């Protein structure tokens, strides 16, 4: 099984390299790879590389967060924004815009908003120190709806200026201008993915049922809390650079389950690579399809993701 897995990983890695190379060359201006390295093109090269790295980070991070939540909540529809992070981050950002906070602090505001909404959802869901999966999901939905309506309320009250600033949030963007910010976000995301991988076997057991996992010596409640915290941290970090990018966290994990099965030891690395490829690919399309107009990345992930998912679902019986 391991040999087969290694082959798949190698194939995906090569595909990612190809996608990255393609992504560097393509854009509103097409530049052959060789001349990209010339001094004249350095600015463009840097910008594109930054975007591609952001795409890889966002894809892997969201997909692994999705896998984790799907497994621990035993709900195939779980996705990274389930715990209200997206609307929390959005609300905080809107408030920051209205208060006239400098753009530099927007990611920080978004991050804090996401964290605050997770804490709120968690508090709402806990009862007698226990957290039922269902109340967690419901609290997430309720907080999301409430915050979203406050966003709309504020935007309609304060008008266009806030609207403009906010638009990229709702459908996501990979436009990162700052190496330092990307690095700052990369640290929690990469560490988070690594930490989740350490829990791969726990995820396998919990997926079969909480009590099943306890019979195997897993302190389910503790592990679940740790993992929810990690996914929240990943999502909150990503949301402050890329806004809301739907579908990746939902469909790439399911697509990869069809390819390698439910074993998280295989699923996590494979999904990491596949989601990175998927995002780099979607980014290329969003930049080039109607160049120089850029289509929001979230639109592309949904338009491409939905049909792929349906095809896979119809072909394979198990998800």
């Amino acid at each position, binding site marked *: *099984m391991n040999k087969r897995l290694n082959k798949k990983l190698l194939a995906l890695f090569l595909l990612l390299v190809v996608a990255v190379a393609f992504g560097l060359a393509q854009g509103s201006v097409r530049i052959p790879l060789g001349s990209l390295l010339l001094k004249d093109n350095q600015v463009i090269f840097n910008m594109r590389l930054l975007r591609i790295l952001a795409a890889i980070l966002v894809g892997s991070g969201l997909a692994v967060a999705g896998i984790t939540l799907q497994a621990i909540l*035993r709900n195939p529809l779980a996705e990274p924004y389930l715990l209200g992070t997206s609307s929390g981050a959005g609300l905080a950002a809107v408030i920051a815009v209205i208060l006239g906070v400098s753009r530099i602090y927007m990611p920080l505001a978004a991050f804090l908003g996401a964290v605050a909404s997770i804490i709120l959802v968690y508090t709402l869901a806990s009862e007698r120190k226990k957290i039922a999966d269902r109340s967690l999901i419901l609290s997430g939905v309720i907080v999301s709806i409430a915050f979203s309506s406050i966003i709309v309320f504020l935007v309609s009250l304060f008008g266009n200026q806030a609207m403009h600033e906010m638009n990229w949030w709702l459908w996501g963007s990979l436009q990162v201008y700052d190496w330092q910010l990307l690095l700052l976000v990369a640290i929690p995301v990469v560490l988070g993915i690594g930490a989740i991988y*350490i829990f791969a*076997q*726990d995820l*396998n*057991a919990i*997926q*079969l*049922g909480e*009590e*099943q996992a*306890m*019979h*195997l*010596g*897993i*302190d389910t409640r503790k592990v679940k809390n740790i993992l929810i915290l990690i996914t929240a941290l990943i999502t909150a970090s990503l949301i402050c650079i890329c806004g809301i990018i739907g579908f990746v966290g939902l469909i790439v994990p399911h697509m990869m*389950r069809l390819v390698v*099965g*439910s*074993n998280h030891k295989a699923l996590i690395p494979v999904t990491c690579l596949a989601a990175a490829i998927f995002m780099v690919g979607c980014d290329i399309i969003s930049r080039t399809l109607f160049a120089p107009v850029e289509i929001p990345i979230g639109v592309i992930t949904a338009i491409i993701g939905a049909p792929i998912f349906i095809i896979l679902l119809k072909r394979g019986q*198990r998800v």
Partner: protein
Amino acid sequence: MKPLLKIENLSAGYYSGDIIKGVSLDVAAGDFIGIIGPNGSGKTTLLRLCSKILHPRKGRIYFSEKDILTMDLKEFCRKVAFVSQDIATGFSFSVMELVLMGRIPHLKRLQFETRKDIAICEKALALTDASALKEKMIDELSAGERQRAIIARALAQEPVLLLLDEPTAHLDIGHQIQVMDLLKKLNRQNNLTIVMVLHDLNLASAYCNRICLLDNGAIFKEGTLQEVLTYKNIEAVYKTVVLVNANPVTAKPNVILVPGEK
């Protein structure tokens, strides 16, 4: 000899009140104990208490003279394994992947399975006669095959005590006998102590050396087959008329149901 598992004056339940009311029971090493009783009599709750899933409100459970509440969960799961009726399906795990989960209690957080772990799993599969299923997906198995895989996973924990909650509930009689024979073999050859919740009184009679009959959260009668499986005890607890004679082959008690309407 000191009992392997000692249940002492145990009371426990959920928010709505006690389901287990003052149960005391000794399980000796090598025992094959059947816990029987009507629906709602607390059989499963008792098993959940013994497996550290549920904490008692009163009383204690000792495993090898250690209070199980003071034992670390992983340490406990290296000694005691649990087999449920069935597991959730709809996941694509291979049988080997499932059985490897049985090694979780033996592995540290950052430790991956070694050859030794794989060898232990292969031995467990061989014991349950499931070696041929190794590469199969659990979704593709029949209920009987799946139950053998689940038992193999429990054996991969290398337990000394196996708790089972109606492991034959979803099986036809052929598979029931197959699973019970397997457990009896493990009980005899590997000296595995078994505590099992059962609905089928005749299955309990055929395989257990001792029976514990629960009624409304308390032990109604506990002892040998002949002591417990009498028509008086069964009629009193199950509120239905039965005949008990001897199984013509094994001479063990054989419970015959008598329909109320003919």
